[in-house]
């Protein structure tokens, strides 16, 4: 029962899963990174305190974060169709994945940036640094290890979401697992896809942790 078409399908599945995960995470950061920076700056004790902006962003994030991904996937289908031209397949799945990742990323970035020592920020202010310089050199520069750990967590989460998209023909390993494991009761194929999914997440985790450790100069005895 395992033949070359199966192998090809698995390889394509891996390719599609990695493609959806990586591209959605990337787009997610394009939206989520500025969001996280805005949250950090406008919160109280931030460099640009603004209650209204903070509360608005905070609320948007809380609302979007509480929509279950499977529902979001269906709700944004018209938008997906508009942007991609169809509502199934791995490219189409990138749209809801990005929208689900962005608020999560916003929160992760916010929490990473808020870990940065206030004293160092104060020192930069006392040197007459522009807010932009403080954001890039001090906040992002000093929080880079934590930000990178955040990226690995986001990748894992987005990969998990991408598998859910299999329900509506989203493509990738999740799609295969649902079609074979759920609709055809082909448990071995489902288990194989599962092994691949676990392996991908594991790999990303290991690489991420390694890079984060390398980049961290705080305690390298």
């Amino acid at each position, binding site marked *: 029962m395992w033949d070359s078409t199966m192998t090809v399908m698995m390889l394509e599945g891996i390719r599609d899963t990695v493609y959806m995960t990586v591209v959605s995470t990337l787009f997610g950061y394009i939206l989520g990174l500025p969001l996280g920076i805005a949250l950090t700056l406008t919160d109280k004790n931030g460099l640009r305190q603004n209650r209204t902006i903070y509360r608005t962003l905070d609320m948007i994030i809380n609302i979007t974060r509480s929509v279950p991904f499977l529902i979001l996937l269906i709700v944004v289908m018209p938008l997906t169709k508009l942007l991609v031209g169809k509502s199934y397949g791995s490219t189409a799945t990138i749209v809801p994945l990005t929208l689900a990742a962005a608020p999560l990323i916003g929160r992760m970035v916010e929490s990473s940036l808020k870990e940065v*020592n206030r*004293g*160092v920020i*104060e*020192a*930069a*202010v*006392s*040197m*007459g*640094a*522009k807010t932009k*310089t403080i954001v890039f*050199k*001090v906040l992002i*520069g*000093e929080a*880079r*290890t934590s930000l990178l750990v955040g990226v690995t967590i986001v990748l894992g989460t987005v990969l998990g979401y991408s598998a859910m998209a299999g329900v509506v023909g989203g493509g990738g390993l999740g799609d295969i697992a649902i079609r074979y494991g759920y609709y055809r009761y082909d448990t071995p194929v489902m288990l194989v896809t599962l092994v691949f999914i676990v392996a991908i997440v594991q790999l990303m985790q290991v690489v991420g942790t390694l890079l984060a450790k390398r*980049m*961290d*100069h*705080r*305690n*390298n005895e």
Partner: protein
Amino acid sequence: MNDNYITLNAISKHYSAKNGTVEALKNVSLSLPQNEIFGVIGLSGAGKSTLVRCINLLERPDTGEIIINRENLLNLGSEELRLRRQKIGMIFQHFNLLEQQTVLNNVCFPLEIRGIPRKERREKAMGLLEKVGLAEKAEAYPSQLSGGQKQRVAIARVLANEPDILLCDEATSALDPETTKTILGLIKTIHDTMGITVVIITHEMKVIQEICSSVAVLENGEVQEIGTVSELFVNPKSRAAKRLLLLEEEEDETYVG
């Protein structure tokens, strides 16, 4: 003409805390002549950190005026203030270096802020590291340095902008007595050679004795007494000053014992 280089005029500052408001500074007025090493001493909670943070407006006072060189900082727009701050250096108790950057990059940072080209700022930073005796640590990271070395990096960093004022917020409080002496010596040398007005905030009489010419004693957000350091030691007038001197004596005795 040289008098009153920095003038704090009736500064008040309060914080809202959970259990009511805290009056950190109550109507504080101080005049600091140019080129002097001026000390502000007080126990923790006296308001001295708030006071020094008002000089470069890291804290904005509720009322009062902060005049430096005949210019009221409170009247400056945010961009003018940002540029003015580049000439008011500050060093901190916990050094506040960029942990993820090398020593050299830390010293380059203020120059980068001012938009100085990379090559030029690296050369200048190297020169400053030599000046503080840390040239060989240029490529090290702050976590690899001792407290005293970190503070010397912070001093090199602060000198990069050639400030006319140096604010020291408990700059030696995290250091042992030996290192404190070296750092104070370095600050003194810088003061003597570059003609900088220095403001030192401390809770240790030893620091005042070692380096300052005049001193203000702060307690409960109020100035209790201002005078020359010798006056303070020979004839302290306020209760706060007497208490601080007494504390110092006790500490000395425990050292000997």
